């Protein structure tokens, strides 16, 4: 029962964090939000019985992707221009 509840809650959280990552104006904040999404995704992979993929997603998605994104934001502009 608890697992089924998790199968409902975590996907909704993932969608919510990805939406936050898209909507925030501050790019650094959206990079962090993307990292949070990756972490939740890795949790979801774990409860979907895919520990291999969970490790890979945690290592690659939450750490490396964020590092590269932060580097790129440091080298460019931090705030998104007003439209």
């Amino acid at each position, binding site marked *: 029962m608890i697992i089924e509840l998790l199968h409902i809650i975590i996907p909704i959280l993932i*969608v919510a964090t*990805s939406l936050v990552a898209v909507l925030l104006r501050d790019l650094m904040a959206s990079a962090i939000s*993307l990292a949070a999404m990756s972490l939740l995704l890795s949790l979801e992979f774990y409860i979907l019985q895919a520990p291999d993929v969970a490790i890979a997603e945690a290592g690659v998605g939450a750490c490396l992707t964020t590092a*590269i994104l932060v580097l790129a934001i440091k080298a460019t502009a931090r705030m998104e221009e007003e439209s």
Partner: protein
Amino acid sequence: MIANIPFLAVMAMIIIGLATVVFKRNLIKMVIGVSIIESGVNLFLITLGYREHSVAPIYTASPGGIMSYPVPQALTLTSIVIGVAVLALMLSLVIYIYRHYKTLDIRKLGGGEE
């Protein structure tokens, strides 16, 4: 049982990512959108291989019982690494575009010297 909510979440992620790529004008936001689509597709593959009340397909100290399917997991591993490769190259191009035009706004590109 729980009415395909994970599948719908996957599609929501893909749609959010696509909308970002189409409507957002910031280059790094576009890259983030691509990354979200990528995550959505990965989640879709894993969700396809999940069986109710299964255990991971690893025999070491496994309690027995049905196992979730290994092929989608292997495909997802491949896809994750491809995703980070694409992201790295895209962001290096973004950095170069910024050096040339001093802006990340896609509407302001296209001017400048040949």
